[in-house]
């Protein structure tokens, strides 16, 4: 393959990636995020708040698909949470799936399922007045989200390195 063909393939590859990325954005911002916003506002936040006594110092607030738990008297740092299978999952999955990195996709998928258990446990610990858990919850949120998109970027880079994938992408 001469350099002209290679750069043409490269260009086509990136056009395809951008095209698919636009599709992903439409899917996520137009469908997934609005659904998650409704679930957070109508189900998650009221359910968490209902487990607290009326005179509780803790309050659950919502902004789009984020919900955060804060103490009115600043007993702990504000905790920002998202539902499992949030935007970070979808972005990572989009990249990993496109480049057929199945092992890593399985890991990301299973970790999101595990989040259904981890988040309630964290919240229960916090509501039992073990406030030192708050920064750990925030650190966990940061770590898993950052690692998901990191894995997506690595999948993208290594997908490009694999000539078979380039062949598939430009068909």
């Amino acid at each position, binding site marked *: 393959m001469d350099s002209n063909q290679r750069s043409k393939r490269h260009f086509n590859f990136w056009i395809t990636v951008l095209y698919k990325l636009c599709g992903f954005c439409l899917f996520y911002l137009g469908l997934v995020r609005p659904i998650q916003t409704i679930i957070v506002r109508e189900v998650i936040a009221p359910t968490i708040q209902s487990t607290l006594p009326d005179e509780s110092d803790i309050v659950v607030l919502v902004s789009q698909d984020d919900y955060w738990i804060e103490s009115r008297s600043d007993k702990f*740092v504000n905790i920002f949470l998202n539902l499992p299978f949030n935007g970070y999952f979808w972005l990572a999955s989009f990249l990993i799936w496109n480049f057929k990195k199945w092992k*890593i996709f399985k890991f990301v998928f299973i970790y999101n399922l595990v989040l259904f258990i981890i988040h309630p446990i964290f919240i229960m610990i916090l509501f039992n007045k073990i406030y030192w858990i708050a920064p750990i919850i925030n650190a966990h949120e940061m*770590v898993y989200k950052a690692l998901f998109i*990191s894995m997506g970027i690595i999948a993208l880079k290594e997908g490009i390195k694999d000539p078979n994938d380039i062949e598939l992408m430009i068909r």
Partner: protein
Amino acid sequence: MAQWLTKNLKIEINKSISPLALFLIKAGAIYAFWQLFYDLVLLPDGRLDTFLSLTGINMAGGLLSLLGWDVDVSGRVLTCVGHSGIEIQNGCNGLNLLGLYGGFIFAYPGDWKKRLIFLSTGLLVLFFANILRIAFFAVFNANLPQYWDVAHDYSSYIFFYPIVLSFWYLWTVISDQKDTLISG
């Protein structure tokens, strides 16, 4: 002796852990440290947050003035004269995103000299992107205040994430890492 042991231990660890797992452990540790440091030190201290918020507001105000807008800067509030202003609070100044960006650059294998150059360039670009974002907010709020929430919620997808992801990708290319981290 101690040096020899450390060197051999490092080699053994590198042999037994896959490159991807090693990257994930490193990155995870950096991100956890950063978030804990932010929550336990930087946030209560507030000086870095305040500095970033005030600098961002002042530079965004300067940029808009340069572009011919009549603006007023007062503390953390930037106002296009005659309209309601915007306020940059701690937590909205992009500091967390700088940590997100830096964690990957630190953890992904590569030459340290290149890494430091790339890290500072990226942080600087993100800092200026935040200034553009603040300026955009002020102008947007002056013209379309009814859509403020939409602009605020989606601004990261326009101003921050494309930059972070592009720089991460560029770093994986520039760092010239030949190893494949992920198998199929």
